[in-house]
């Protein structure tokens, strides 16, 4: 299947198509975030035998809109002793980082906002903005809880980038590329061609399947840690740090942190989708595949991962800082290294 940007096809390569390419993910992000917020509310409610929001719209489906409207009209409070400039800047840095990740995500063979050949590496790099945003907000709030949360968050995200990077490296070795479109293309065909199941190859590849499964699990865990989701939500651990780095934020700035969190969730979910679940490929080979179906498969796979994240959040307690570090450095890293070596060997052998 050929990859291209359908906007370039329609209106030609121009500033307009570039702007539209940047705008489409933004619209997608907002719609997705609203759906994800509703999902979070409803799934948490159902897991806990509650009904969840039921008032706004039928079965409460308009609740996220109501929440955003509420946040929009709330008073924008800046604590007196906060560093005003950095306090106001932090949510934007955070959101910029989250949104920048969307630039390379291939939603379909016919659309990736920016098709660059280092997509996977790029997503990892812009993740750094989230760290800066959190640290900035945490420090500028002039609140000890925020500071503690920011420090925890920074150490957590930096530590978990390492096993995450190893997983991505392995994926790059498997696909022989860092280009997200090419990684997706490499897994075309039915679902047993996905890297989750060892990637395309003869049936003798069966012995690498445990390693690829393990690898995807490791990436799932690291992605949870990098997006500060339970069980790794210690930066905002409610019972300890009240709200962590966003304790002092309210109104729209809080909403931006919130949106950034959900955007990050989607980014890691889509990386997982692209690297292990075949990206926009249909699980049934040629059946239901194509440029348009690509969007469907991609979003539904990514949303399934988001669902997994939400499901885990409402199941598990929170780990402690030192256990998080233990898990990252002493469990995930060795396992990821073993998988990396085994899969590199596999790559050389076949």
């Amino acid at each position, binding site marked *: 299947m050929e990859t291209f940007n359908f906007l370039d096809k329609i209106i030609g390569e121009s500033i307009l198509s570039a702007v539209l390419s940047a705008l489409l993910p933004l619209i997608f992000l907002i719609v997705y975030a609203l759906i994800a917020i509703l999902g979070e509310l409803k799934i*948490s409610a159902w897991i806990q035998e509650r009904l969840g929001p039921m008032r706004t719209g039928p079965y409460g489906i308009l609740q996220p809109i109501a929440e955003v409207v509420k946040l929009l009209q709330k008073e924008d409070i800046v604590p007196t002793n906060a560093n005003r400039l950095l306090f106001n800047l932090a949510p934007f840095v955070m959101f910029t980082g989250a949104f920048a990740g969307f630039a390379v995500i291939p939603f379909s063979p016919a659309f990736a906002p920016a098709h660059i050949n280092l997509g996977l590496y790029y997503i990892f790099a812009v993740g750094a903005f989230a760290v800066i945003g959190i640290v900035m907000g945490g420090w500028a709030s002039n609140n000890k809880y925020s500071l503690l949360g920011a420090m925890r968050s920074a150490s957590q995200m930096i530590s978990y980038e390492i096993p995450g990077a190893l997983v991505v490296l392995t994926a790059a070795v498997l696909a022989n590329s860092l280009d997200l479109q090419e990684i997706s293309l490499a897994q075309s065909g039915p679902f047993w061609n996905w890297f989750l199941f060892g990637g395309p190859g003869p049936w003798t590849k069966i012995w690498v399947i445990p390693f690829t499964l393990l690898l995807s699990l490791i990436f799932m865990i690291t992605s949870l840690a990098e997006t500060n989701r339970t069980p790794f939500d210690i930066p905002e651990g409610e*019972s300890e740090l009240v709200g962590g780095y966003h304790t002092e934020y309210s109104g729209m700035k809080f909403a931006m942190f919130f949106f950034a969190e959900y955007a990050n969730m989607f980014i890691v979910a889509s990386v997982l989708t692209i690297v292990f679940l075949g990206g926009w490929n249909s699980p049934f080979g040629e059946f239901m595949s194509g440029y348009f179906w690509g969007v469907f498969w991609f979003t539904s796979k990514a949303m399934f991962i988001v669902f997994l994240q939400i499901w885990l959040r409402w*199941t598990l*307690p929170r780990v402690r800082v*030192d256990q998080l570090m233990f898990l990252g450095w002493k469990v995930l890293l060795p396992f990821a290294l073993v998988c990396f070596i085994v899969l590199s060997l596999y790559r050389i052998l076949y």
Partner: protein
Amino acid sequence: MTTRKFIDIDFSRIESDRMRLNVGPQHPSTHGVLRLEVELDGEVVTDVIPHIGYLHRCFEKIAENVTYPQVIPYVDRMDYVSSMNNELPYVMAVEKLMGIKVPDKVEYIRVIMSELNRIANHQIAIATFGLDAGAFTPFLYLFRDREYILWIFEKASGARLLFNYFWIGGLANDVYPTFKEDVLNIVKQVRKTNQEIERLLIYNKIFIDRTANVGILPADVAINYACSGPVLRGSGVQFDLRKNEPYSIYDRFDFEIPVGKGEVGTVGDSWDRNIVRMREIEQSCRIIEQAVEQMPNEGDVQQAIPKKVRPPKGEIYFRCENPKGELGFYIISDGKDKPYRVKARAPSFVNLSVLPEISRGYLFADLIVILGSIDIVLGEVDR
């Protein structure tokens, strides 16, 4: 006595500022309006100073100015999650002072109600403990069950939380006709949820890692600090007033005293204190089942209620095993219809005093878990 150092580094060697952090009085996990002044070295707790009194309502002074029956509503408000248990030692103390013998049926209803309330209290304790560790869902499962128990209380006494149900010499009113079936159904439901919570939360590896080997309270320290209830039993001390000093009709039932054995960590850690509560729920279920079986259907619950509560001159200390520990009332009567002095020995208050001792050297996140494992209610701490 040594407290475990979190990391093997001599912190005094490194020149660094300690951070003073105010936890509470408004904080998600201080279980009320407790204020903890925490001294942190990085994230390691070096000192904790609990500041109490934000919920002080002068219970003891008020008790001197109201008549004996009027104290009961105030007693309810001490430990507001186990009001039935609070009423029991007070009314039994006054009864003893006056030499009243209550009918059997009253005793059985009192035991059933107390044990149901013990279950409700432990459910809250486990639920909020899980919440402190970050698990939200078990919290709601346990609260759902607690709600069913509260329905029984509401049907029997008319109130959900602050009952004024045990009166001196009897009960406010008899239980409703389907009481026994309801109670047995609840017991069934509680057992079911208990199993689920054990699988979902208690034996979850993350939860074990968070709570085991955290906040270790050795038995001698627990005894020196006069801890009682699950906090004491979690340290492996088999002491339960229901068994060691049977009051009411507890000597008629067959039950065990669960103690902390250090199943997944050290004896006396937070996990042990919690598991003691889990096991106590099971034992309470057993007591309730036996009590329901033995409870007489006939009998007037109000026949022994005195017209005028005017105990003779004298004093009494009476203690009961509350869900949170030993709740004792020391009453001095000068022969009038109002007590001369009522002193409450509140288990939460005593247990809280051990917090600084067992939380030094742990991480800040552990401090929250330790506080949750002690299971305090600020209404009782401050009174």
